[in-house]
């Protein structure tokens, strides 16, 4: 392989690693670090990167090395932290000199293809988390089981109908409206005991924990652009949740004349 081609391969490998990290919920500093570390290790000294929350710009070129640049746009995706952990592990191995360029490429492809959990496992996990949250906020055993079902249905809605059909904002408004509707329903029928516990168990599944935490971390690390975008994302989702909840409660007030607490 001639030198220019080899350098290009390194850059593409680093970019690919960065893309997987960013897509799956890593913070900007980690992406920059990993990209540059991979380039330096394979001998590409002039590489330089610029990472935003939804894109990576990567260039190389100096007197000795060939000019090359690549921009990769990265859509916001559902996080899969095991891919972040795997790429991190791979980058450690590369730094330790345990991986050739070809091996690293193959390993990255494998990480990219690693499957997530099937929908029913995710919905069941959401149900159990929701149930536990309602127990943490003073729910009784009855509330636990109601929240279990509400969480399961909510996640089912988000995965099967929300993701393919609606934008993020509409999806969250509809999701929180669904939670409120089901909670009031359970509460009025006497299936649930405490409305507050039911609501908290449902809402917490929609709360943008990843965007919020990563936003703060990016801002704390000085990546203000990415940090603000992620915080904005989190705040929008918070508002969408409030909108959905508020709409149904207002409606319930009109129709059934208030929900006694």
């Amino acid at each position, binding site marked *: 392989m001639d030198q220019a081609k080899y350098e290009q391969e390194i850059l593409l490998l680093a970019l690919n690693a960065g893309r997987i990290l960013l897509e799956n919920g890593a*913070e900007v500093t980690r992406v920059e670090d990993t990209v540059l570390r991979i380039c330096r290790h394979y001998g590409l000294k002039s590489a330089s990167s610029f990472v935003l929350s939804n894109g990576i710009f990567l260039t190389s070129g100096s007197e000795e090395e060939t000019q090359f640049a690549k921009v990769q746009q990265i859509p916001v995706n559902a996080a899969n932290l095991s891919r972040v952990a795997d790429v991190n592990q791979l980058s450690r191995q590369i730094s330790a000199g345990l991986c050739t360029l070809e091996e690293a490429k193959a390993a990255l492809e494998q990480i990219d293809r690693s499957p997530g959990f099937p929908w029913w496992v995710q919905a069941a*996990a*959401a149900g159990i988390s929701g149930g*536990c949250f309602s127990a943490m906020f003073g729910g009784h055993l009855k509330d636990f089981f109601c929240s279990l079902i509400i969480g399961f249905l909510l996640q089912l809605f988000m995965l099967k109908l929300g993701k393919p059909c609606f934008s993020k904002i509409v999806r969250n408004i509809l999701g929180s409206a669904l939670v409120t509707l089901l909670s009031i329903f359970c509460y009025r029928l006497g299936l649930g005991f405490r409305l507050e516990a039911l609501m908290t168990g449902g809402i917490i599944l929609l709360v943008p924990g990843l965007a*919020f935490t990563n936003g703060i971390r990016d801002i704390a690390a000085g990546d203000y652009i990415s940090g603000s975008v992620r915080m904005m994302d989190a705040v929008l989702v918070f508002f969408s949740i409030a909108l959905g*909840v508020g709409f149904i409660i207002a409606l319930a007030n009109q129709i059934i004349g208030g929900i006694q607490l």
Partner: protein
Amino acid sequence: MSSFFNIITQTLAAAVATVGFSLLFGTPVRYYPFCGLIGGAGWFFYITALPFSSASAATFLSTVIVIFMSRWFAVRKHCPVTIFLISGLIPLVPGNGLYWATYYGVTGELTMAFQTGLEAFKVAVAIVLGIVFVLEIPQKVFTIGNKN
């Protein structure tokens, strides 16, 4: 006695909920026990501190503990701190406050809406402060006594 029982069940519930969230975020299965431990510990300190302090102070305390533990395990398990941090913090996010603020806002009790909304915002700020402070602690502190 009953409050002791409450603390135990709630801590267990928080641990299980955190593991559930770890699954939703796609955390590798081998880290589930640590995620559960961190989430449970965070909630345990939160409800233990709550009778003696405001919600935001209790949140700050448990955020500090959650992130400290996350970094501790991240160094020992050689993985990004994100893995423990995100699911561990979920129990502390003010979802409940968000509900109350909306509820009072819609039912026209604006004073209560403002009060609960401000409380939720203060809790969020406490989480921010906790994250910022503990992530600034140099990495060396967490590698103390780390054999491998």
